[in-house]
């Protein structure tokens, strides 16, 4: 029956591992914002690719920006 020590040790180790994981997740700020990730995960790479057109326009925008300054 002394196998119970082994079992206890294993179960507690597993529990402690999860607890440490929890502490780390809090520490890294995962619980600071619980809303935005739920929206973010639904986005895909929705950027519409239109290579040559967007490139030429990009430059224009940079220019309009510099005139703003």
């Amino acid at each position, binding site marked *: *029956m002394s196998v*119970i*020590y082994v079992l*206890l040790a294993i179960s*507690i180790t597993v*529990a402690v591992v999860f*607890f440490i994981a*929890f*502490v780390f997740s*809090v*520490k890294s*700020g995962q*619980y*600071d*914002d*619980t*809303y*935005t990730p739920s*929206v*973010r995960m*639904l*986005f895909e790479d*929705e*950027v*519409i*690719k*239109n290579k040559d*057109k*967007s490139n030429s*326009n*990009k430059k*224009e*925008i*940079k220019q*309009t*920006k510099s005139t*703003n*300054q």
Partner: protein
Amino acid sequence: MADSTCYHCGDECGKSSVQFDDKDFCCNGCKTVYEIFTSNGLSTFYEIEGKAGTTPNEIRQKYDFLDNEEIAQQLLEFNEDGVQVVGLSIPTIHCSSCIWVLENLNKLHSAIKVSQVDFPKKTIRVTYKTENFSLKSLVLLLGSIGYEPYISLEEYNKKRKKVDRSLIYKLGVAGFAFGNVMLFSFPEYFEVEEFWLDQYKPVFRWLMFAFSLPVVSYASQDYFISAYKGIRSKLLNIDVPIALGILVLFLRSTADIVFDLGSGFFDSLTGLVFFLLLGKFFQQKTYTYLSFERDYKSYFPIAVTRLKKNGEEENIQIYNIEVGDRVLIRSHEIIPVDCTLIKGSAEIDYSFVTGESDPVLKESGEKLFAGGKQLSDVLEVEVLKSVSQSYLTQLWGNSVFSKDKASQFQTLTDSIGKRFTIAVLSIATVATFFWLIVDPSLALNVFTSVLIIACPCAIALAAPFTLGNMLRIFGKYKFYLKNTNVIERLAKIDTAIFDKTGTLTTNQKGSIHYEGMELTEEETALLKTTLRASNHPLSRSLYDILKSNSIMTLEEFQEHTGKGIEGKYNQHSIKVGSASYVGESKSNPVTNTAVYVSADQDVKGRFVFKNTYRDGMSQIFNELSDDLELGILSGDNDGEKAQLQKVLPEKTKMLFDQKPGDKLEYIKSLQGKHKVLMVGDGLNDAGALAQSDVGLAVSENINVFSPACDGILDASMLRMLPKFIKLSKRSVRIIKMSFLLSLCYNVVGLYFAVTGQLQPVIAAILMPLSSISIVVFTTLATNYLGKELKNLES
């Protein structure tokens, strides 16, 4: 056309819509943002949520101060090796489209590496390379797509404060220990006489002891600290019996396992702490993106442009402004100090200070007060007083701004806690004496049992869950409270004082009426055509009310910023603008904004813009007058007294010409006998809001402005105020009912304790059962109250 809404922002386009790409836009700004998005492959913005954009403001030179490295450095979170990280607050974030486009900023500029939005806080963190890019360009880029960041003096001053996550850790520790201890104590609940179970009993018991150690020493430390503070200030708060309960639970359980008397109450102990922390966590709901602590610092710019003696411009921090400096105030900048106008024509919006939104025109030589916002062109001013000594900022020297209302208020829970503690201690003593006589061996057992079972877990949970849920429900109806304490205070008020301008009146649909010689049809048509060309807000609203359909092509049009506009057609000319501009010599002292009109050099008359009262104002007052004494405190003259008396209940007190300081004093004088609710909106009410028992700020746009207060109410929901107050009173009744319920549990528990038969398993059942039933009861009851709000709204 008139019915079309802007493809970008969803506003009505009116008659001046801009068409582009087969889509309608309300203005050029919105069209430009559309162009930027579509040409950079970001047109999905419009698919995630339709018409969700924000009209960009012109910002131009406003952010020149970000070129000053010293200032920029203060704002940056990280700055090394050509990479900078900055966190900016963007009040206009409001939907998933916003999140999407802001997290795709790198498509707009290659220097931007990562951008991440925190939606609840309405902030964005951007990492970017400094090559060909800077903080200023980032701010301008955000501004150009309608997400102008909000950079204020307040932000500049605050130390990077660490996020306080200790409650989550404590909750984690308590929950972790609770779950494990439950499992370890489970075998002993059944008390089966089994060989192996008896053999390993000590192992399980000491494991439980080990798990409960961090709970007592770490997770529950707040209760010990609070109880200690309470006792030291001779106050028996609810945390005293809780701390006592936790301590006794732990010591008794330890003694039990050391002397092999039983399995101890570790399961109840960890469960108790876990539930208590859960209540605390639930109560902690805060509207992080709203600030309830704002003072003038939140509105003032960080830096201003100072003119050196040799005419050079330099950006300096606002605190470095000295008396006698020449300072440039650009369009849409806030005047940070009291000063004299030297050059330029001022059109100052004092809505921050007075709540009155119509701009005031000032000539050079006149005095300008800090807090006004310049609307038209560049001003040059000479500083009269330094920042901290300006008229507006002086108000914050008053001591009411440093007191904490919540700590002075004795909550229902605390007042119950006092009686409860006394009752429990006396029961424990009586029972112990009884057993000392009858059976001394049981005396200590009974004494600790009473303290354990009477631990007011359910009582301590009633208020957090009721009020926490109420806070959320109110939030759904755009009534945002600083904390749960405010609801209890709101339930106690018996007097409500309102500010007039901005609170009871609205500038959204001000009525305009004309005084003077009647305009001919031709003049009206010319006037309308002239107004059409102007983008000034007053022109726009005037344009909308003028009835004339003939649109002509103007031969000449001139806009004199800050003065007025002029249009010529067929040898007739028309001038619209300030009194001096059109040639009216005597500018009548009116409290309302007026626009003067002259045709062919003859002054014809003026259009007066009046604020109108909000819909249902008299209804609100009538509803409130049943339970409360009402009053109006206004900074304006008493011109509208008669009109107000007609629509408001008779008993309403009215005081006019009240300066910010007067308002504060008036509230103070009332507080001798009354609990006062102050409803205001501008910085001029700030003193009264701080002094009152509950200060509510009414705001047209909750993100933009509100003075320091206990709660922010969206202006559209003002009509619900009587209901909010009523529901606050009812929530307090729910708490009282929960107290009764939990007392029932305590009576049952005390029976076991006093008779000396309290088994760990009874405590382990009773404690979670009482806590959970309280949580269920309060949640259901508050949701029921919430339903009433829903009915009222629809």
